[in-house]
């Protein structure tokens, strides 16, 4: 039972479970822009468990700026017919654990900053959501100056930066556990409630 006036403690999370596939996905959920459109880039990879197996029942969401560094705050992510770039998308993983998005490459949201995708990961077996970032490779000076990256050991830092593929697409794997475990993030207000 909740009494909001007395209790502003956050509602706990719970796993997304195994049965979200008929509810959360929708047409063009992962196509922030249509694949093949000028400027479209693919951000893709796998979600892996601690044994190195692909997680076939994960859900990945991304939020990011447009190429100019502006973060869109416009509706239209569920019915994309309007053609607005909303800067938000959702992808299930397939049987091999692979997710993908077709989107525009984000620009830095502040001068000299490092461009990145904000990412949330959900899965059956994962009891609460996880946050991470996917940094865009290329601007070495900006990446070196990025506070989060600068505080990480070299291997963890490398793994938070997407790999540019020969065709221009971006590759980023999520490892929920194990030697290559992804660096997951907590934000100040998350620590109000643990």
């Amino acid at each position, binding site marked *: 039972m*909740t009494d909001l006036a007395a209790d502003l403690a956050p509602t*706990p999370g719970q796993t997304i479970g195994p049965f979200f596939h008929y509810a959360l996905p929708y047409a063009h959920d992962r196509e922030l822009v249509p694949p093949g459109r000028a400027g479209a880039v693919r951000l893709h990879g796998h979600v892996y468990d601690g044994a190195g197996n692909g997680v076939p029942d994960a859900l990945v969401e991304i939020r990011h700026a447009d190429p100019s560094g502006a973060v869109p705050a416009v509706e239209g992510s569920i019915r994309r017919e309007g053609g607005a770039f909303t800067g938000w998308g959702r992808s299930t993983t397939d049987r091999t654990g692979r997710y993908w998005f077709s989107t525009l490459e984000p620009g830095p949201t502040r001068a000299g900053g490092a461009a990145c995708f904000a990412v949330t990961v959900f899965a059956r077996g994962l009891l609460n959501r996880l946050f991470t970032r996917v940094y865009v490779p290329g601007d070495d000076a900006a990446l070196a100056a990025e506070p989060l990256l600068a505080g990480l050991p070299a291997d963890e830092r490398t793994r938070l930066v997407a790999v540019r593929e020969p065709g221009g697409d971006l590759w980023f794997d999520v490892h929920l556990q194990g030697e290559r475990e992804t660096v997951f993030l907590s*934000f100040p207000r*998350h620590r109000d409630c643990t």
Partner: protein
Amino acid sequence: MESQELISKEIADLQDSRPGLGQPLLDFAPYRSAVLRHPTKDPRPADPEGAELVAPVFGHSDVDPLEADLTIQSGQSGGEPIGERIVVTGRVVDGDGRPVRGQLVEIWQANAAGRYVHQRDQHPAPIDPHFTGLGRCLTDDDGGYRFTTIKPGPYPWRNHRNAWRPAHIHFSLFGTDFTQRLITQMYFPGDPLFALDPIYQSITDEAARARLVASYDHHLSEHEWLLGYRWDIVLTGSHATYVEPEDGDDD
């Protein structure tokens, strides 16, 4: 398969060793699927920036108001779903008590017999041709949401022998910034399965677990029509207006 007694013993041991956690313990082995799917390192503290400070925006072009009534979604077949008709309503507020306005709420659930419309659900209970069990709505200016649906049934799963999930509705929520994203489950009061369920019990603080349980509200029930449940949701605080607390506040 392992026994409920073994799972319950593991739950009790973990709750003794890690008491008082207001969010699920990710490394919670009584939920067997968590064993290979929890990070082993604590999350890295980061300051939100850029896109993390702005939640995605949803609007009336995204969500049809009819999507909030799960009892009329199989309209063309003309029939009504089987089960207890209920309304589930409440408010979405952030960690400072501010209503989250005009934001997307998504739900999905089993039917009255405990069966999902999902290929992977092998529970030998009937599919209801008049119930899909998924809904969406936008919160109003007070952060309010409201769904008309059918009370879901408990269902068995293969975590251990004779494992049953307490009846629940899955909720997906957004705040005003991206860091407030939440997916959770709402439960019904008095469910005898609570004590046995490793997903519910992964939150080791009893008061925090209770925040996932709706309350029956007779004022919401409608004469000869449906029963009412109230469930309010508190997201984590927004960072968009966040200022580090200082000593000597004037309150």
